[in-house]
């Protein structure tokens, strides 16, 4: 009991000291409004989990190593020793859980089948029935093309595209966005787990967590002007998306630093990593930095130099959106 109290006191002091360090580093302590001061005390955690041997000696991702990589990332994110416990913090038996994958890039640059299987396995261990899990994207053929085989009905994990059930008739709006939402989102998911891919994007600069929601609506082609800004942020403000979103598990096993979002092998690299966070803005900011480092290594201009810096990330963090933080001082990147 006393040890526990002492440990709590230690934790409290530690938190105070790190918060003070954040404020000192910012150099703007006196400028923060009370709400901002409070926000500054907490950091958004972004976990980058790597496994250089993820593919063994071949090109295909090893299922066992992927499961272990997922466990490491989730345990680091939630500070837990047991992988199943981490999932129990996110979902409860009876929840219907949607995994919004990204299959637009086709084979080579889509959410990995092995990653999707690993997530489904852990969700079931956390008490979610297989038939209450829906793996989905906009189009069933695109999903089939990348190895996510369509499956409907029965007591198995459901897997299909919005083309099978259509979009809601009613338009939902926020700011610059007016769209019809996938019925899979509105009628089949209480909880949304975002499973995007780490990619360069010709219009937005990068496409990672927030941009993956373009696959939820009927008219994504309308939202590409001005670097997709403020469309990406406005879209993610829709309550149907925002209230369901619990976690982003970014598939960065193969990533793309130029020429995205389609698969161009000459601009892709085997990164063998997952990036996991509950803050999609912090995750996108972190992913952007990874892409910039790769571009520099390849002798390419920065995205800003290429006149396509991902300005949507700052918009997502601004006072009108508050979808997360893009302030590196408030992002705790943990590499495991």
């Amino acid at each position, binding site marked *: 009991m006393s040890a526990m109290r002492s440990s709590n006191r230690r934790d409290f002091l530690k938190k105070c000291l790190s918060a003070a360090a954040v404020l000192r580093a910012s150099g703007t302590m006196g400028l923060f409004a009370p709400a901002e001061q409070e926000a500054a005390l907490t950091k958004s955690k972004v976990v980058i989990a790597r496994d250089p041997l993820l593919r063994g000696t071949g*090109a295909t991702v090893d299922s066992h190593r992927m499961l272990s990589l997922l466990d490491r990332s989730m345990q680091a994110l939630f500070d837990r020793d047991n992988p199943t416990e981490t999932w129990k913090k996110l979902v409860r038996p009876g929840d219907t859980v949607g995994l919004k994958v990204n299959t*637009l890039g*086709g*084979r*080579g640059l889509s959410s990995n089948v092995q990653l999707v299987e690993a997530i489904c396995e852990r969700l079931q261990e956390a008490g979610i029935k297989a038939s209450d899990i829906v793996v989905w994207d906009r189009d069933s053929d695109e999903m089939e093309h990348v190895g996510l085989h369509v499956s409907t009905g029965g007591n198995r994990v459901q897997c299909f595209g919005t083309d099978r059930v259509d979009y809601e008739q009613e338009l939902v709006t926020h700011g610059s966005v007016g769209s019809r939402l996938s019925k899979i989102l509105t009628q089949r998911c209480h909880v949304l787990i975002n499973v995007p891919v780490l990619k360069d*994007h*010709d*219009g*937005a600069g990068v*496409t990672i967590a927030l941009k993956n929601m*373009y696959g939820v609506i009927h008219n*994504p*082609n309308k939202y*590409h002007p001005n670097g997709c800004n403020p469309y990406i942020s406005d879209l993610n403000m829709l309550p149907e998306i925002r209230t369901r979103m619990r976690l982003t598990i970014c598939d960065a096993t193969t990533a793309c630093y*130029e*020429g*995205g*979002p*389609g*698969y*161009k*092998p*000459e*601009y892709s690299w085997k990164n063998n990593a997952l990036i996991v966070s509950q803050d999609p803005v912090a995750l996108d900011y972190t992913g952007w930095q990874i892409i910039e480092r790769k571009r520099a290594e*390849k*002798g*390419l201009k920065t995205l800003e130099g290429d006149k396509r810096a991902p300005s949507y990330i700052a918009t997502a963090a601004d006072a009108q959106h508050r979808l997360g933080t893009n302030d590196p001082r408030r992002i705790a990147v943990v590499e495991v």
Partner: protein
Amino acid sequence: MTSIREVRVRAVLPIMVGAVVLLNVSCRRQPRSEPSFFPASNEVAGWATTGDMRTFEADDLWKYIDGDAERYLKAGVQRVSTADYKFQNKVNATADIYRMGNAEGAGKIFQSEPSVDGKQIQLGDGARLSSQSLVFRKGAYLVRIVAFEESAETQQALLQLGRGIESRVARG
């Protein structure tokens, strides 16, 4: 007084107009395609087609390459046709043939892509070959072939398929 000929013309004209309108609608629904540019199975040694060819008109390009479509639209793309192939049951590949408005449009796309790991080769009006991809332009066409597996033979196989497509494009 109305002549019999005038009456006939008046009766037939709306039917003809209707037929033209219907024909026009039907043409729009049926995307134009360029099947002859894709070699059939084994026309290029080792390569077999593995699915149906698909064509996307400019207005629908986003359904195929959402996020990348704007770049092609700005360069005057008219349509893209795509087909899947397999080389000797080992290497899967996708070939895309973009029909641009003119050669300048094809050149614009080709030049906008930096040459990082690829090498320039002699094919069409300009070509880049890397370990898993071949991009070349020929007149108003831009062709991109992407392989999904890397092997010792992949690069050479891509080049063979590329030559097969280029000769068909050259013939028109």
